[in-house]
């Protein structure tokens, strides 16, 4: 036994490492998450301005140009600077520890990918202050609006936006190459693909989607940038170009992007439901494989965003079918989680509450998603608030809730301290009520015909918009207990034992927080499937001995 080095006796690493070019995946993970939440606050502030404007039918709070810039930046910040970075943060923390790798395959590339996010984040924020203001053509940035360039300067908010998106793509590709290589090549001995935690399966699936889809957006964005600054006419009908071509490039990536976001959240659900139900994941193999069915189908559905753009009828029908089919593997996952919960021993901890709330919202979003996939309904509700409602149910209602669940669940592992349950439950309650109050009223408004992206609207939509705005403000408030919880737990929360939730997984066989190289040379040999709750089979060889050492270290830490 060479486990004696486990109690970390080395001097505590300095906090300044979080502000440096550090190559430790766990440091990078926390850097990603903290930076992402900084931008989450900015994106949230922009959302508050949007909902403030929309609480009355008239365009009276801000100028229309300002409104358009703000809604564009809200979407851009939330997607490219919050949700992708926060998920990459979780990938960085969880993938190496879950598969028993000392670090990512390419640690320096990993750090470069992170700092690129910081750089393009600054670039995007700076675009608020250039003459003419930031990009205002929506996060889709459809030409010709996006190449109109009202001031005619070479240097415009839209140009900065496109540069930022290209950098974001570069960073994501670097990340994806890294995650995929790590998962394929650096798993612990004995961990075949079918002994790999579902989070890693979903991360592998999501990152494969990034690799296939993202270059299409990057290519499309490069052409758009040339149209904007170099005078080409790829998308400009005046010069023989075709604006619809951009929509194909854009949606070929941006629809799969939704799966890039939601797949890891499926992974989180699949990790957490077994822990807090004390049961194995129901149908592990099927759940794992369903991720790749979703990847395959996800690549051939993009035209459903363009049903009203003037695509041929056969294309509409074809893409309606493929889109509908995605409901099947997704349904498999939902039912598998229900099967996991069924007859379990449910513990309603904060992470579990967020998972259950997220699942509730996700099922709702899935149903409106099937509605949107059917061409005749889509022709009525596309580009209305119905879509906005559906999308926010997916992204906020399901994905962000799942991310909160993950943060509460793995916070003790990577920070080494316990978050507070009371504040966590308050955070859950406010988030769940706020999200539903905010996003549910968007559906009736959309069904009645309220277009999205409007800065003013007809008075008949006022009732639903007032409700939505109140929900949005509640969501704004809901972040306060979260921040309080995170900061105070990090500073003076109770010390976390190595496995506070009594969970099964390689990451829980490490001390909290783990040493810089995780298991180092002593990677345990995996001998059974994950989620063996109640089966009595150990996950790794010599599990008892490892646990003993860790528990002794926990006790020693507690007695200090």
């Amino acid at each position, binding site marked *: 036994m060479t486990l004696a080095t486990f109690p970390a006796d080395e001097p505590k690493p300095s906090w300044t490492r979080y502000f440096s070019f550090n190559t430790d995946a766990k440091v990078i993970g926390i850097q990603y998450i903290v930076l992402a939440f900084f931008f989450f606050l900015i994106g949230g502030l922009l959302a508050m301005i949007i909902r403030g404007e929309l609480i009355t039918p008239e365009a009276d709070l801000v100028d229309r140009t300002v409104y358009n810039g703000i809604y564009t930046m809200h979407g851009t910040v939330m997607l490219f600077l919050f949700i992708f970075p926060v998920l990459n943060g979780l990938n960085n923390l969880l993938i190496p520890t879950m598969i028993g790798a000392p670090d990512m395959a390419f640690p320096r590339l990993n750090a470069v990918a992170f700092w690129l996010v910081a750089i393009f984040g600054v670039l995007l924020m700076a675009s608020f202050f250039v003459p003419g203001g930031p990009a205002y053509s929506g996060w889709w940035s459809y030409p010709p609006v996006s190449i109109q360039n009202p001031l005619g300067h070479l240097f415009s908010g839209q140009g900065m936006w496109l540069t930022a998106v290209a950098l974001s793509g570069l960073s994501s590709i670097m990340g994806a190459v890294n995650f995929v290589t790590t998962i394929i090549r650096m798993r612990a001995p004995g961990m075949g693909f079918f002994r790999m935690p579902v989070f890693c399966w979903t991360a592998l699936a999501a990152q494969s989607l990034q690799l296939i889809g993202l270059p299409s957006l990057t290519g499309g964005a490069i052409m758009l940038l040339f149209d904007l600054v170099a005078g080409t006419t790829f998308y400009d009908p005046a010069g023989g170009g*075709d604006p619809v071509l951009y929509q194909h490039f854009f949606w070929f990536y941006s629809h799969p992007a939704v799966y890039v976001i939601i797949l890891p959240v499926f992974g989180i659900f699949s990790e957490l439901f077994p822990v807090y139900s004390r049961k194995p994941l129901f149908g592990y193999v099927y759940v794992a494989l369903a991720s790749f069915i979703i990847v395959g189908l996800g690549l051939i559905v993009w035209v459903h965003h363009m049903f009203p753009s003037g695509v041929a009828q056969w294309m509409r029908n074809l893409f309606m079918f493929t889109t509908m089919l995605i409901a099947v593997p997704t349904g498999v996952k939902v039912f598998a989680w229900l099967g996991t919960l069924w007859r379990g021993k449910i513990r309603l901890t904060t992470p579990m509450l967020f998972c259950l709330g997220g699942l509730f919202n996700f099922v709702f979003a899935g149903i409106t998603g099937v509605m949107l996939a059917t061409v005749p309904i889509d022709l*009525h509700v596309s580009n209305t608030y119905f879509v906005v409602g559906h999308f926010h149910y997916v992204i906020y209602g399901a994905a962000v809730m799942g991310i909160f669940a993950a943060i509460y669940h793995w916070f003790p592992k990577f920070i080494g301290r316990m978050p507070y349950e009371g504040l966590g439950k308050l955070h859950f309650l406010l988030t769940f009520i706020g999200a539903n109050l905010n996003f549910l009223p968007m559906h009736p408004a959309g069904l009645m015909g309220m277009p999205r992206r409007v800065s003013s609207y007809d008075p008949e939509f006022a009732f639903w918009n007032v409700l939505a705005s109140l929900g949005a403000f509640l969501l704004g408030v809901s972040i306060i207990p979260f921040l309080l919880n995170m900061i105070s737990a990090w500073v003076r929360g109770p010390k976390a034992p190595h496995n506070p939730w009594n969970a099964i997984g390689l990451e829980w066989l490490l001390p909290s927080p783990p040493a810089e190289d995780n298991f180092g040379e002593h990677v345990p040999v995996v001998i059974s499937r994950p989620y063996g709750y109640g089966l009595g089979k150990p996950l790794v060889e010599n599990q008892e001995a490892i646990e003993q050492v860790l528990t002794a270290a926990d006790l020693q830490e507690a007695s200090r």
Partner: protein
Amino acid sequence: MTSASPQKPRFTPVSMLGLAAWVVLLIGLSWWMGQQAYHWLPVQASTAAPLVDGLFSFETAIGTFVFLGVVSVMVWVLLMHRADKYDESDAEPIEGNTRLEVIWTAIPFVLVMAIAVYAMRVNTTLGMLGPMEHIHLSNPVEEVGGYPGDRLPAEQVEVIARQWSWEFRYPAANVSSTELHLAVDQPVTFRLVSEDVLHGFYIPAFRLKQDVVPGRAIDFNLTPTRVGRYRLRDSQFSGTWFAANQVDVVVESGDDHSQWLETASRQPLQSGISDASLEFEQRAQSGRSGWATVPPAPPPQVNVPGSNLLPHDG
């Protein structure tokens, strides 16, 4: 449930009966929601509307059933399968059940395929109302569209979208307007063109929407079925005054419509509705500064400006 031993039969007759009763209740509720769904939509004012609404109602009912089914399980689990306060033990380890997994793959598959087939049939019917998308590459004059003779629309209207105004031209009557007038129960063909950016031709009461793509002339058919005043909204983001790019659609009886065309053709040309132009001027005068914008196109010169301020039906 914590006391349940693994050997205990899962489904007693009583529990099966309870389950059946619950399913019947859910089906009833779903049917009711399907009926409610009609009230969430604007008035039906075109031949497409009842078809779309029927499909929406059907999907609402199915969706409600699935949603309530899932939520019932979640609530049941939360009520009945909670761990006792100090119970740290694991539950009975069920790793899966192939039969169940096959069932819950097959059922969603059948459900979505049923919806898809229904939707395709609606699609085909909508298509029979007139070729829904006849896309021609920029040459609005030569092409007249290929309709079967018996379905040749009675009226053709050219729709010109601009940043930010709508102009409607009736070539047969030599009339132009910024208020769309249509005869009830008469098929009409629109030729949609844009002079600048993407716009969306969207009349919620008709349940139809079509992007207006610069560089293309898109033919688009519909048949209004209800007299009234409706809203036409720009549905594809088109820049600063996108939200203000809304005008009215007046559906009137055939006689009224001929009358209107007749009167309109004698009106002199005047500035049509362009809320954007008005706001742009006010904005310049008040010195309010925002971020950069493209100036609005000048208001179209039309015979009848009409109004977009009157109360509308949806």
